């Protein structure tokens, strides 16, 4: 790749997007150059996705213009591909029933797909070796975890020979601690090969080391653009992303941890030789021996898809264990159904509330009553008005920012559904909360609120199993940690006595020494 680095590949002038009365973006001015990494940071709902979709031609801007190589262009996805703009989507554009190779072949423009299959395959291997993006062309996408899928998506974009600008939408949200490092390394290599890179993210700390320019997006407007030469200051940038008010509040995790005294607390959940099986009746986690006490948070680390879903679902009674016993507060619950477990005070936050919890057509308050909110009766029926007023008064519902309870749950965004389901799980003050990725995909401000809510439950004596991939979260919140890898549970570890590196290694490869 050659040519002058001074002219931007893509430039936007006063780009504006309105949805009805709502202004998602206004006055966006960006200049994207070769061999540079431009990070756009902002919280959820700051308008990052809208902006990026305009760049790729999925949305038509309400105002302003996009210039490619200095020429004003009306963007469409086809036009974007032709102009060398490649996008790595957050929800990958891959067909699970196809292999990586088939997905790539389908995405290639006609003239590039015409070559012999062998040559295309060779090129895939070349690219994956050059940028250290391991991809097995013959593996089916449905067999891949999210990190692998992302790599296929990246190789796919790089396979298009015209690509010179890559847009990444929240790329690190699906990656584990160690994968993020490899990802950043790959970005550096792409940059030195002349690619222009746009990174859209809310995880500022991950991009601060590699970005050349950082733009902060807040409420649809770029509030600040800083270059590497000017120097990045993390705290200033975070404050700009979140607004001053949120940034001033500092969570005190250590204090919450001290409230737990393992000597006095009673056992809530005891697992003995518990084995978890998956949909195909294969054992995914074997021989779990765990005890969780009241007021304790047990962090469960692990790359997603290693049996975490099956684990919490088995504990909740949605699945039957292969073997072993489960005790709740001293009573044997191994063979008891979901209903008796709910009555015993077990609550579940599913890893994908949108998939698992939404009943189309039902409003938020109806969902609340389905599981969670105490039911008030009036005659033979439910007294909806009392339930509604009580929900409206609930501080929990307010702190978690649950939207108007008359709205249909189905119409809310993923993050809002997640918060609503968290509120529902905690409304009853459960004795045992199974929380799968409660803060995944949420912005920094909301994550803090979620953490506070969980810590309050802990203070009230609730035991929490916290499943997460975010090591910072696990270390801050957990009294004890364990790791799911290699069909086993490793641990327990005391967060203060171990390192995130060690836990990260365990997540990837299990125990090396044993």
């Amino acid at each position, binding site marked *: 790749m050659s040519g002058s680095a001074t002219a931007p590949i893509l430039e936007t002038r006063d780009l504006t997007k309105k949805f009805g009365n709502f202004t998602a973006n206004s006055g966006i001015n960006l200049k994207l150059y070769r061999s540079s990494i431009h990070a756009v940071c902002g919280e959820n709902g700051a308008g990052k996705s809208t902006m990026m979709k305009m760049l790729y031609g999925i949305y038509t801007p309400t105002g302003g213009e996009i210039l490619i190589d200095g020429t004003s262009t009306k963007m469409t*996805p086809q036009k974007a*591909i032709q102009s060398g703009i490649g996008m790595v989507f957050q929800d990958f*554009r891959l*067909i*699970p*029933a196809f292999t990586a190779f088939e997905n790539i072949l*389908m995405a290639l423009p006609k003239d590039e797909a015409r070559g012999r299959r062998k040559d295309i395959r060779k090129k895939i291997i070349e690219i994956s070796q050059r940028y250290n993006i391991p991809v097995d062309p013959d593996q089916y996408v449905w067999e891949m975890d999210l990190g692998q899928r992302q790599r296929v998506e990246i190789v796919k974009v790089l396979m298009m020979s015209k690509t010179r600008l890559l847009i990444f939408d929240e790329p690190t949200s699906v990656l584990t601690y160690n994968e993020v490092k490899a990802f950043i390394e790959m970005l550096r290599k792409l940059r030195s090969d002349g690619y222009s890179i746009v990174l859209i993210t809310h995880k500022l700390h991950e991009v601060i080391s590699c970005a050349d320019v950082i733009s902060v997006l807040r409420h649809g407007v770029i509030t600040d653009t800083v270059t590497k030469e000017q120097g990045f200051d993390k705290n200033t940038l975070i404050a700009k992303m979140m607004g001053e008010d949120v940034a001033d509040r500092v969570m005190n995790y250590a204090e919450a941890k001290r409230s737990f005294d393992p000597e006095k607390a009673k056992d809530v959940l005891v697992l003995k030789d518990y084995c978890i099986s998956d949909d*195909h009746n294969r054992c995914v986690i074997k021989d779990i021996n765990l005890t969780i006490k009241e007021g304790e948070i047990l962090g469960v680390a692990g790359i997603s898809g290693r049996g975490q879903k099956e684990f919490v679902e088995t504990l909740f009674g949605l699945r039957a264990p292969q073997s072993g016993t489960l005790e709740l507060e001293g009573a044997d619950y191994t063979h008891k159904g979901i209903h008796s477990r709910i009555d015993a005070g077990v609550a579940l936050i599913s890893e994908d509330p949108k998939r698992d919890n939404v009943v189309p057509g039902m409003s938020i308050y109806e969902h609340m009553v389905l599981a969670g909110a105490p039911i008030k009766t009036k005659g033979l029926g439910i007294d909806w008005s009392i339930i509604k007023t009580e929900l409206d008064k609930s501080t929990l519902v307010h702190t978690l920012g649950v939207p108007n309870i008359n709205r249909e749950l189905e119409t809310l965004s993923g993050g809002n559904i997640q918060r609503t389901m968290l509120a529902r799980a905690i409304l009853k003050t459960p004795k045992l909360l199974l929380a799968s990725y409660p803060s995944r995909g949420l912005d920094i401000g909301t994550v803090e609120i979620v953490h506070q809510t969980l810590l309050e439950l802990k203070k009230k004596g609730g035991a929490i199993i916290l499943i997460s991939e975010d090591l910072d979260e696990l270390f801050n919140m957990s009294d004890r940690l364990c790791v799911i890898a290699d069909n086993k549970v490793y641990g327990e570890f005391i967060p203060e006595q171990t390192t995130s590196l060690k836990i990260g290694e365990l997540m990837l490869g299990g125990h090396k020494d044993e």
Partner: protein
Amino acid sequence: MIIESLLTGAVQSGTSVLLTVCGETVTERVGVINLGTEGCMAVGALSAYIVCANTGSPWFAVPVACIMGGLMALIHAYFVISRKANQLATGLTLMFLGLGLTAFFGRNYVSVSVTGFTRVKIPLLSDIPIIGDAIFNQDPITYLSYLICPLLCILIYKTRFGLILRGAGEDENVVFAYGHDPIKMRYIGVIMGGMLSALGGAQLSIAYTHTWIEGMTGSRGVIGVALVCIAAWNPAKAFIGAYIFGAAQALQMMLQQQGLEISSFLLMMIPYVLVLIALFITSIRRRQTMPAELKKVFESVT
């Protein structure tokens, strides 16, 4: 001897089902279910018969049948793809439309006889013991079906066109995002399905039975839809279900000819019971192979 004639009957009777299964496989691969295959088949059977009776040329009858079946499928395609009508309702309606149309236009041909295709013996190959006669002493449409199955496999699994075709049945948004036209792919898939079903119908009327009777397709089209699942949406496996059904048909007729003292209605149920058993066995299979867009048909009305 009994086994040989059973096998011959299985292929003769199974060919029409085989072609229907292949056609419906292509249709379902693009994410559309066409319950109207029975109608396409009946239209194919009658139009081939009429052309054959009037011109005497079965070779001319075959393309006409395919075109007529394709037109029937086009109705389905227009309603479910362009108008987003309910696929199940449209398909069922199409089936009864096809049966009704053929009953009406075919009433003058019930007693007309045609020569059509006759069995062509392939030298040497047909002398193979037991299976030789069953496979290599058949009518031209059956020989054609031997070619169509592998060709479809190559088309679906080995070409970029097939990849995009399958892509349209898996996730139309992805296909669209890369500059392909999922709507066009669906039309192609549905029309191809109708044409193959009609070819199956033609085999039934001008190559196998050499007669026209109202409702002669005898639910072969509907069974074909069920057999697509047994074949796991793979044309290479289409013959399994089709020939099992064909063999059951042949067996049922042989038993009737033997004059067994079992009600012929019970005997006529044999093929369907066998299909149910086959469906039961294949439902144990774990791996999900159903095209993803097809699931939407059953999960939502629109």
